[in-house]
């Protein structure tokens, strides 16, 4: 049973028995991993208080072949994210990011996804109050792109022709539609996954997909629209019918202040 020490982000923590915790981790070297930290719920456990949601650290796991649950023998915090709990908006967005990694990331190691999740949580914690929403959207899109699902914004996903000006974005088809194919979709019915994007909306989405903060701030209405579009895209391409309660929680309410 080799001991493996790897950078890791804590994505989920649940109590196990009277004294232990089961922790779901996104690790750089092992991919998604589950660890059992025995005694971590005891009052005087040195490891227990460190095993909190979203913490980035160095996890030591006693890896056992063909076992899904490895004993977690240590976790040294590099960066705790306790401040994410001081603001329900940041907490909701961080939970959505963690869920994206938990439900959609491959089980194998994926350095780019690990970097996107760890970087996204750090950015969320340090974002200015008015930037929480766009920071969260950019962080989630960065993970989606790292997973290989980059939406097409400049070319029609159906025919490949360039798309300019106002365009329609189909979450199900994975990107922009030219006028001809948007009209065809509308005539055929089933337009629920399609969002109309004026050029400024498309520029905002392009920045977010690139993992950048858009130049213009998002007002509350546009923040809602971008959350819906992201959630719909994830649902169609990554979720495979699995429920995504944290994404729904984030999407459900204006937890964070936006530029009005």
């Amino acid at each position, binding site marked *: 049973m080799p001991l493996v020490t790897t950078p890791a982000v804590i994505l989920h923590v649940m109590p196990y028995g009277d004294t232990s915790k089961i922790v779901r981790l996104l690790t750089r070297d092992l991919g998604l991993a589950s660890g059992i930290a025995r005694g971590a719920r005891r009052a005087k456990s040195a490891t227990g208080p460190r095993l909190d949601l979203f913490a980035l650290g160095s996890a030591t796991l006693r890896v056992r072949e063909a076992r899904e649950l490895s004993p977690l023998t240590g976790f040294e915090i590099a960066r705790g994210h306790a401040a994410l709990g001081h603001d329900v908006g940041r907490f909701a967005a961080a939970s959505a990011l963690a869920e994206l990694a938990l439900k959609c990331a491959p089980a194998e190691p994926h350095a780019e996804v690990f970097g996107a999740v760890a970087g996204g949580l750090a950015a969320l914690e340090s974002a200015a109050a008015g930037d929480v929403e766009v920071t969260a959207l950019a962080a989630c899109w960065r993970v989606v792109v790292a997973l290989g699902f980059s939406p097409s914004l400049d070319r029609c996903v159906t025919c490949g022709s360039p798309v300019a000006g106002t365009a329609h974005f189909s979450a199900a088809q994975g990107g922009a539609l030219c006028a001809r194919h948007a009209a065809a979709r509308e005539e055929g019915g089933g337009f629920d996954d399609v969002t109309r994007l004026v050029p400024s909306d498309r520029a905002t989405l392009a920045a977010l997909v690139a993992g950048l903060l858009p130049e213009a701030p998002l007002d509350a209405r546009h923040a809602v629209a971008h959350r819906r579009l992201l959630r719909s895209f994830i649902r169609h391409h990554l979720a495979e019918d699995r429920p995504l309660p*944290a994404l729904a929680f984030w999407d459900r309410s204006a937890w964070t202040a936006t530029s009005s």
Partner: protein
Amino acid sequence: MSAIEELVAEFAKLPGIGRKTAQRLTYFLLKQPREESARLARAVAALGERVRTCSQCGDLTEADPCAICTDPRRDAGLLCVVEEASDVAAIERAAEYRGLYHVLGGRLSPLDGVGPDRLNVARLLERLANGTTVREVIVATNPSVEGEATAHYLERTLHERAPALGVSRLARGLPVGGELEYADGETIAQAFAARRRFPGAGGAEGAGGGAAA
């Protein structure tokens, strides 16, 4: 399904009990006098028959309202909000707090699908509506990210509904009997932020308000 298999399956549903432990418990019971097993069965049955949640505070009780809610010696001006009924028992063991309680039945946990609507928040707001005797709500959620988020959600909600109400948090920092050397940075930071002056000592206030003990 045989009686043995049925009991093993029931034990295995309990938190922290795997199939092997469930089998061990079952065979242990089989070796006990029949009256021992009957006593256990009666105790389990009594749980379902007699224990309910208090309609006032949400704690587990056999009488509704519970003994704490109806105790005239308790300070009805203080309301301590906790995540689980087991937290009430823990605070009562300390014998330091003499106010009332409100049990949320969990904490915000979007990853587990727990939002404010799944917590006992509506009843809390009812208790704090017009005519309440409560002057301070003490939020005693766990010092985890989820507990913190729940506390901040409550603080914001209570401030919107009852701006005059005092809302406080339990202090956090180094555990009694713990060692500084083994504390993580976040715990040390919180302990510094919530440091207290010695009673009667002079000097500037602490960074975290520096309340005198």
